[in-house]
């Protein structure tokens, strides 16, 4: 060895970091789910041979308590430096196993999941190929975990103020729950009043208590709560920042009425000459003036000028309201204003819309006045509605003697409507039939339905009451056409139970219209940065386990903006969101996943492309000074509080100075090289 050759290996000792690692590989059968396709025993044997693997074992269910215990024991006994659990998707049990590792004294980020269920055993038929693929997946994760680093959670301060977007029942509930726990809430509603759809309803199933009677006190409570700042006729137009530290921009739309001085006396409303405007609140069944409150119990009960229909705005003349207002509260010069809010967490409770039934041309919605949707029927039946609660035909104001209710008008209809079940229509149609029976003696209701879905506390009893006590006639089948004949609406459908077509002459037809997402839901989701599904309903972080969180940390969901819901469900979800937020607010600092970018300032060239590329403005420009304070060079610097760990900057960085913890260049390199 004096001639110790520079280009010769030296007798026996050679090694590589991979062998130096001590990785434990735990292969889960997941019962038969994995075990039936992937030969787990063979996989364990293969992995046991892999350089750097200290132990490779298989087991029926590693996520079970004994399974987790065995992982912990193996970590302790073998002094493992990393763990790979070959099991289901990391989206299922990554947290479980990371916790187990932490309990065994291993940094939780030294644990990786190899997904051999969702992406292997469940999707491949050939056991040989599946086993081979499982080995590749596991090996690649072993290579990755060898390069994992111990990571510590990042602490960020929390602004203890919640923002609730949407002033329907869900939003009000969430706001009240949070406020009642002593935390500040900003409640933003884009309509001039709180209330949402629930304020429009007549009675509510299954108890038939008056919707407004239970709703309006909640509205008032929210408006008057010292911890709630209410912003109506306002829209959230921008959300920046991150959990605990959102910066929210809200547009206060001009009401043209100074709500500070206005007492809500209503003189302007009565004197407004333009009273022929279709009322949104009454779904077009009533009229309102150009200066108006949506309904009598509006909160705040201050009028607003409908700019599009106001004579002054249209012609530059009128100003009757200005003249009658003794408090000079009318201000035509008012402009939209923007306010900035510092927010710690957000509840999105933006609600739903009813589907536009004109897509059902065969039903004649929009063509025949007496074909209305479920929400319009609510207004008709409501004591505060255009008919003061009397069921009257919109066309001639007569009491209908026969009503046909058509369920699933839009729902569960992939061709013209939506694929999903709107969940509440069966119940409200039964309710409508009951209300009709109570209000119009001898009135005959016929209900075309597909299935009666009445799962809920007291729900099935309720529909049975409609059938049995209130003699609603349920016909299982679809309606194919509605046309007018001799002042009657002729409804042709099929009774599939009898197996024959039926034609019913009705005075009124009520469509149980589908619940759909707000028309601007997708844009709104992009504004605030949350996910949404193909229908425009907002995505929850996990359908079963995290149903109230959005995919973005710190933003929660409540009510029908996530999926069709009835009132109890909406309220429950709102309270759940509130409790999540209260948990978040219970700490001064918040721990975040340490998957954030870091910059090597020594090698950074300071081109600052990353600053532009970062979606979160998380990268700042930083000057490196020498001892005398002179700028030696300028580099990029990542703010770990803002960084969300997308890694866009990393792949932009030409000098390879940026890196992303948890998905480092080294890890991915190893992962690719391990495949």
């Amino acid at each position, binding site marked *: 060895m004096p001639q110790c050759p520079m280009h010769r290996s030296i007798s026996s000792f050679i090694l590589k970091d991979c062998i130096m690692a001590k990785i434990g590989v735990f292969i889960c059968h997941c019962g038969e789910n994995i075990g039936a396709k992937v030969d787990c025993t063979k996989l364990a044997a293969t992995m046991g041979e892999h350089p750097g693997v200290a132990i490779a074992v298989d087991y029926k269910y590693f996520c079970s308590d004994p399974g987790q215990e065995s992982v912990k024991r193996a970590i302790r006994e073998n002094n493992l430096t990393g763990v790979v659990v070959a099991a289901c*998707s*990391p*989206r299922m049990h990554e947290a479980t196993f990371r916790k187990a590792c932490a309990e065994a004294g291993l940094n939780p980020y030294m644990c990786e999941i190899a*997904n051999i*269920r*969702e*992406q*292997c055993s*469940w*999707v*491949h*038929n*050939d056991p040989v*190929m*599946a086993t*081979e*693929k499982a080995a*590749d*997946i596991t090996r*690649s994760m072993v290579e990755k975990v060898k390069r994992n680093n111990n990571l510590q959670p990042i602490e960020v301060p929390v602004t203890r103020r919640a923002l609730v977007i949407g002033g329907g029942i869900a939003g009000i509930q969430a706001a009240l729950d949070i406020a009642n726990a002593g935390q500040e809430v900003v409640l933003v509603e884009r309509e001039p009043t709180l209330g949402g759809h629930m304020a429009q309803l007549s009675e509510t199933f299954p108890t038939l208590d008056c919707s407004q009677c239970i709703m309006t006190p909640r509205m008032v409570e929210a408006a008057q709560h010292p911890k709630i700042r209410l912003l109506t006729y306002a829209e959230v137009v921008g959300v920046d920042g991150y959990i605990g530290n959102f910066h929210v921009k809200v547009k206060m739309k001009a009401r043209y009425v100074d709500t500070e001085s206005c007492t809500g006396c209503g003189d302007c409303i009565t004197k407004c000459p333009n009273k022929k405007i279709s009322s949104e609140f009454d779904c077009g069944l009533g009229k309102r003036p150009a200066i108006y409150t949506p309904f009598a119990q509006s909160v705040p009960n201050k009028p607003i000028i409908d700019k599009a229909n106001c004579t002054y705005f249209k012609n530059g003349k009128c100003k009757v309201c200005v003249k009658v207002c003794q408090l000079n509260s009318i201000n035509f010069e008012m402009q939209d204003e923007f306010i900035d809010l510092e927010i710690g967490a957000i509840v999105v409770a933006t609600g739903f819309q009813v589907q536009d039934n004109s897509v059902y041309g065969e039903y004649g919605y929009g063509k025949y006045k007496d074909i209305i949707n479920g929400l319009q029927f609510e207004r008709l039946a409501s004591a505060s509605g255009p008919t003061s609660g009397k069921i009257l035909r919109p066309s001639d104001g007569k009491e209908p003697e026969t009503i046909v209710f058509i369920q699933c008008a839009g729902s569960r209809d992939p061709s013209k409507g939506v694929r999903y079940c709107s969940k509440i229509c069966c119940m409200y149609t039964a309710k409508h039939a009951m209300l009709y029976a109570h209000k119009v003696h001898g009135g005959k209701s016929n209900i075309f339905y597909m299935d009666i879905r009445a799962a809920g506390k007291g729900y099935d009893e309720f529909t049975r009451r409609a059938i049995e006590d209130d003699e609603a006639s349920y016909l299982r089948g679809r309606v194919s056409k509605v046309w007018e004949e001799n002042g009657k609406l002729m409804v042709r459908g099929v009774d599939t139970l009898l197996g024959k077509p039926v034609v019913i002459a009705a005075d009124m037809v009520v469509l149980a219209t589908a619940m759909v997402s707000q028309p601007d839901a*997708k844009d709104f989701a*992009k504004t605030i*940065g949350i*996910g*949404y*599904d*193909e229908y425009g309903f907002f*995505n929850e972080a996990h359908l079963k386990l995290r149903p109230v969180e959005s*995919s*973005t940390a710190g933003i929660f969901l409540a009510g029908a903006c996530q999926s069709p819901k009835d009132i109890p469900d909406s309220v429950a979800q709102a309270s759940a969101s509130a409790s999540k937020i209260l948990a978040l607010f219970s700490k001064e600092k918040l721990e975040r996943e340490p*998957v954030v970018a870091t910059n090597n300032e020594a090698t950074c060239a300071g081109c600052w492309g990353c600053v532009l*590329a970062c*979606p*979160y403005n998380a990268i700042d420009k930083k000057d490196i000074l020498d001892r005398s304070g002179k700028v030696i060079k300028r580099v990029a610097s990542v703010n770990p509080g803002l960084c*969300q*760990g*997308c*890694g*866009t900057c*990393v*792949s*932009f960085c030409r000098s390879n100075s940026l890196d*992303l913890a*948890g*998905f480092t260049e080294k890890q*991915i*390199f190893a*992962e*690719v*090289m391990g*495949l």
Partner: protein
Amino acid sequence: MSEPFEPKIVAFVCTYCTYAGADLAGTSRLKYAPNVRIVRLPCTGRISPMFILKALQKGADGVLVSGCHPGDCHFTHGNYHARRRWTVFRALLEFTGIPLERVKFSWISAAEGGKFADFMNSVTEDIRKLGPFDQYQRLINETEAPATL
């Protein structure tokens, strides 16, 4: 070669959309070709062209890159950046003669389990038809053989 050629394909996907889509394909028990090995990344924005080159160096016959549809990025616009990067990188690959049929890009959302399965099948089929990436394999072999001249 008596055995049919089974291509080796490496996929780089974002965890929020395509990886979730792959999970959905799994939960829906959709069957697809087992040739693809997935590398999970937080976002398509994290996918550097180097990954693709290294996958080819590791003998991949094809490479897929997939993430959230435009506008759906969990990180608001990582995929827009990625799209530009891919446009440029594709042109570069094409110009250097790396067949574009071997490097595919797609948007697959978390809801598109079916699309994921179909995509895996179609890509595997396409690349199987193209055969092994011999040209590149030659380069790889060269790194292993001693220089003689």
